Structures are given as structure tokens and as C-alpha cells.
């Protein structure tokens, strides 16, 4: 047995400090800016309204926790870890009564997850729902330890870039920005870069892995979550070579915006504002850099249960929520300001997710897959053409 990394728990606990405001302060609240740590240790800055929203959110998280405990009492512990209906259709033979209960569980769980997974249950629920547990079960127990041991001390282009980015990943975070935080994040990212050398290291993954570490608490679990994300949940080639998967997603997103928010799409087109200018980062960092942490994690709750289409729902919702303001914007800078203000102050996850799932309307994974298929050839042609042009530049040079 190598080391103890697999069981090494990340030792941090954040006492989030949200001040309580006395009413007398309300009168001047627009002028007060406060700094405090959120549930995951990020320093947040906002005004009193934001603080109040965050307090409400914490209360809702507590209530939601009670709903989960009640269901556990009713259906048995870990009921949510039982086979989902999707895996049943894959051919696991079950008695029809069991099928029915699995179906109701699936529906209950979907609804429940859209309302949020309590932070303490996240590691367990994510690990199971995302398929990470299944992925890990297909390799020897010691896989992660063997991997980190085997790659220790190796230097590649990827490890150099990772080392460069460690202190640049959420700098100032009370755990991530410590030598222990850096070392842990490094093992996860370096390990993955060797697991999939096509991906190696792509900037953006540092933020995703960092947030996974904060949630999962165990680095091996964070590693498997990263693996399942890149290999199963997200579209292929999001982070490889020329980010072709990311280009595909952006094109699909543009089409969806035109369909779901035609007025905004037309207006932005008239301004020659390409929505990819802002949405690229959302998709590559899975909102970890743009939304407040609890809101981003609520998006991830649904992402791991329902798949990558969730990213479209959320991105569309951000535009949709600000439709009227966006229609009044006449400059690229104004559009960006509106979107920035919106994402950075979405302290209430409910506000976002309600729009994302109720107002945007349903989109099936199937239709999204079809749209991706449709866009792939165009993306490939464009990237190919670009490459040839660049190569011809080099020829000219000689």
C-alpha cells in the first residue's frame, strides 16, 4: 500500500461569518460594503442586501437539509444512491415493483436536486450520481495512489504550467492558497495530466479541480470527479488541443440563444457582440469563476445529475434574467457590465435556477446532442482552415 493519500482528508472547516445587521443600519445600507467569508471560505464583498440574501440562502440550505433527512428517515439511508432509472433501462433486470419505486425515486431525486443538495451530503451524492463511483470501481483500489506515486518528480510541459498556475488559482483562499492546498491541487492536476495526455493540463481546470477539492474534501474523490466530468459529463474535447469541444458548445449556445431569447440574440448581433466573448469562460470553468460559490455549486448539483445541458440552461438564464437591461445596452462594454454585475451578485441560487429550468423551457440531452453533431463539421473545418492559414504564415517566413 502506498502512502495514505487516498484517505487523506482535507482539513479545513470554514466558519462563515455573516454579520447580522441591526435595522438602524438599513437606512445607510447602500453605502456600506462588507467583506465576509462564504460557506466555502471565499471572501465575498457586497452590501447589506447581499448579506441578507446570503443569510436567507443559508436558512434555505438548512431547511433543504431537513427535507433530505426526512426522506432518509422515510426511504432509508442512502436511498438516493440506489440505481437510477437510466441505469435500469441499460438492462439491469429488476422486478416491476422495484422499477416503479426506482422511477419515483428518480423523479423525487431530480426535483430534490434542483432544490439543492445539502453541503454535507454533496460529496456522497455527487460521487454516486455523476458516475465517479462506478468509474473508480473499474480499476484497482490503489489506482490513484499508484498514479500519484508514479508521476512524482516527473517534469512535463503540463506540470510546468500547473506549477505556474497553483498560486494563481483563487489566490487568497484560506486553504487553497496554502502550501498544503497547492500540493493537493497539484497532485490532482498532475495526476490527471498523466491519465489523459490529450488533455494534459488546460487552464480553467485549475479552478474546477480547486472547487471540487473544497466540496469533496478528499483529494482522491476530487480526482475521480474531475475524471468523470471530462470523460463522461461534458462534451468531448472541451479542454484538449484546440478546445474544439468548447467551440462546438459555443455554437450550440448561440443557436439556443437565438431560439430561446430571440430579442436578445438579435440585439446583440446588431451590436456585433459575440456571446462567446463572455460565455467561453462560463463553460470552461463551469461558472466557478463567475458565480458566488454556493450558486455555482447548486449548478453543479444539477450538472452531475442531469448532464452538460445544464450549462446551457444556466447560461441562457443569465441572459434571460437581464433581457430588458440588455436590450437597452448600446455598447459592448455595457453588455459586459450587465452580465458581470448579474453573475457576481447571484447570491440567491433559487433566482437563477428558477429561470434556468422554468422559464427557459425544457431541452433534452438528445436534442442538444443532435445540435452538437450538426456543428461539429463546421468547427472542424474552421479550426482546420485556421491551422492551414497559420502554417502558410510560417512558410512565408522562410
Amino acid at each position, binding site marked *: 500500500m502506498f502512502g495514505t493519500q487516498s484517505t487523506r482528508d482535507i482539513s479545513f472547516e470554514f466558519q462563515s461569518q455573516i454579520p447580522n445587521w441591526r435595522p438602524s443600519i438599513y437606512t445607510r445600507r*447602500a*453605502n*456600506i*460594503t462588507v*467583506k465576509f467569508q462564504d460557506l466555502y471560505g*471565499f*471572501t*465575498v*464583498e457586497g*452590501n447589506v442586501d447581499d448579506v441578507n440574501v446570503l443569510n436567507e440562502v443559508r436558512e434555505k440550505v438548512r431547511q433543504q437539509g431537513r427535507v433530505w433527512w426526512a426522506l432518509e428517515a422515510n426511504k432509508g439511508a442512502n436511498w438516493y444512491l440506489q440505481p437510477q432509472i437510466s441505469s435500469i433501462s441499460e438492462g439491469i433486470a429488476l422486478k416491476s415493483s422495484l422499477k416503479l419505486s426506482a422511477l419515483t425515486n428518480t423523479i423525487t431525486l431530480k426535483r430534490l436536486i434542483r432544490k439543492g443538495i445539502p453541503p454535507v451530503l454533496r460529496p456522497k451524492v455527487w460521487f454516486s450520481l455523476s458516475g465517479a463511483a462506478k468509474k473508480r470501481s473499474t480499476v484497482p483500489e490503489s489506482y490513484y495512489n499508484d498514479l500519484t506515486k508514479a508521476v512524482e518528480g516527473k517534469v512535463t510541459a503540463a506540470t510546468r*504550467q500547473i506549477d*505556474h498556475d497553483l498560486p*494563481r*488559482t*483563487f*489566490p*487568497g*483562499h484560506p486553504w487553497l492558497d496554502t502550501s498544503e492546498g497547492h500540493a493537493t491541487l497539484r497532485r490532482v492536476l498532475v495526476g490527471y495530466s498523466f491519465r489523459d495526455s490529450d488533455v494534459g493540463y*488546460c*487552464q*480553467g481546470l485549475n479552478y474546477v479541480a480547486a472547487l471540487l477539492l473544497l466540496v469533496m474534501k478528499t483529494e482522491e474523490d476530487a480526482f475521480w470527479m474531475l475524471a468523470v466530468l471530462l470523460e463522461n459529463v461534458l462534451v468531448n474535447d472541451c*479542454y484538449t488541443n*484546440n*478546445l*474544439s469541444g468548447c*467551440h462546438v458548445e459555443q455554437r450550440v449556445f448561440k443557436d439556443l440563444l437565438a431560439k430561446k431569447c430571440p430579442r436578445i440574440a438579435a440585439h446583440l448581433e446588431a451590436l456585433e457582440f459575440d456571446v*462567446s*466573448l*463572455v460565455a*467561453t*469562460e462560463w463553460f*470552461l*470553468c463551469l461558472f*466557478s*469563476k*463567475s*458565480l*458566488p*460559490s454556493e450558486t*455555482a455549486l447548486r449548478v453543479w448539483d444539477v450538472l452531475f445529475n442531469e448532464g452538460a445541458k445544464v450549462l446551457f440552461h444556466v447560461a441562457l438564464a443569465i441572459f434571460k434574467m437581464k433581457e430588458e*437591461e440588455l436590450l*437597452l*445596452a*448600446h*455598447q*459592448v*462594454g*455595457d453588455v*459586459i*457590465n450587465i*452580465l*458581470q*454585475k448579474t453573475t*457576481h*451578485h447571484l447570491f440567491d441560487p433559487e433566482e437563477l435556477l428558477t429561470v434556468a429550468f422554468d422559464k427557459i423551457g425544457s431541452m433534452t440531452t438528445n436534442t442538444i446532442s443532435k445540435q452538437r453533431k450538426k456543428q461539429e463539421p463546421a468547427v472542424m473545418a474552421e479550426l482546420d482552415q485556421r491551422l492551414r*492559414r*497559420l502554417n502558410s*504564415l*510560417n512558410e512565408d*517566413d522562410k
Partner: protein
Amino acid sequence: MSRMLLSPFVKFLFLEGVEQNQKGEVVSEKQNKYKHRFPSSSLYLLPHISSIFLCNFSLHPPPSISSSLSGPADIDSMATIGHNNLNAKLVLLGDMGAGKSSLVLRFVKGQFLEFQESTIGAAFFSQTLAVNDATVKFEIWDTAGQERYHSLAPMYYRGAAAAIIVYDITSTESFARAKKWVQELQKQGNPNMVMALAGNKADLEDKRKVTAEEARVYAEENGLFFTETSAKTAVNVNDTFYEIAKRLPRAQPAQNPAGMVLVDRPAESSQAASCCS
């Protein structure tokens, strides 16, 4: 827009501008129109808030008055009434870690962070400069440097009036990368684009790998404006932007291939104010 209402802030910003730049070129900066402001010191601590759109900072106001600067004020219009107002898209390109974001942060906010978050996709900023009798409002795209993000770059340099190609004087690799960018822009960018080559981290003289002479010769051959900068010490940072502003072609037609548009800023800003307050 009421001059009375804004005057204290205008004065404040002017003073700060003078302090920021001894030549006094930074006359104003577009105000953050929003309630929630993130004073300078907090940037380091705001992982979720400091990413893609760090824009429209004011010049490090003391925290005590920063929140009172909020509201739908648009200082631009104050500084620019009756002058030529130019909007210019500017893009920063260069290797990962060369210091693109740091240069922008220094220019826009007068700050330097020992550890600057790596940029994903790109980040947008804006900053206004006065040049002679006109103002130039830079709309700055700070791009991601990792090689594989290359395929996103055209989206950011398309229609740009200016580009700063940044390399790190302590890395020959980053200089080679800078040359590639120059080449690409010469072929793919706007023919009138003003290009600057910036050898950053000039404060790290003892680790220097790229000589100023070598870079200067290359820049001359390629018709670029060359400078060595330090985002850390602020050397040549504002000057570089100022020089670019001076070199931008004037009196452009409304829609032109260089991507600059003469705008009637007072009208535009009142629209902006009404939609964002």
C-alpha cells in the same frame, strides 16, 4: 446629466488621475455604475468576483468614499464634452504568465498583485485617456495565454484598433511566441492596427534572457512600437497606452475597418445610465 451632481467626484477623479500619471493624461475613468464596488485591496481576495470582467475600475479610491461613488454617474461625458471622443478596441496577446493581466490591472487600477489569477477566455476592461484635444476610450480585451486558447484569439482581435503583444524578458520562449503573434496579426488583423511590443517584467534584470537590443531590432523591422515595461514597478505602463492612443489614426469615418467609431458620448452615456441604474 447634471454637472452639479457629479462635480465632487469629478474633482476627485481628476486629482487621482494626476496622481496616477504625472503627465496627467488619465483624466477620467468610466464610473462603475453599480452599487457594489470592490475596493482595490479586495481584488486579491475575491476569487469569484475577479474573473472575466474586471472593468471600469476607478483609480483606487479610498474605501470610505468608494461606495458613495456609486450611482448612474458617467464621468466620461463630463471630461469629454465638446471634444473628439474615440472608442478604440485594444487586445493584449502573449504567452501564459507574460503579464498581460498585470499590465492591464496596473493601467486601469494602478495595482499590482504578486499572484494574478490566470485568465480563462479573456477579461474585459475599459479606461479613458486624454490625448491632446481628444479622449480615447480603450475597450481592452485581456486574453488567455495558454497555447490551446490560441483558437479563441480571432474573436478578440477582430476589429481591434490596437494590440499590445507582451512577452516576459526572462523567457526566450515567450519572445518567440510574441513573434508568432506579430506575424499572425500582420496577416489576419486590421491593416491599420497600431501594434506595440512590450517586454514585461523589466524589473527582473538579473534574470533577463531577451536583450532589449534584440527586441528593438525586431520591432523596428516589423514597424512596431517597442517598450520594456514592468507591471510591478509601473515603469512604462501608462506611457505605452498613451503612446498607442497618440498613434491611433484620427478622424475615422463612423464605421471603419480599424474598428474605431467616433461616438457622441453624452447621448450614449445617458442611455447607459438609464439602463443600468
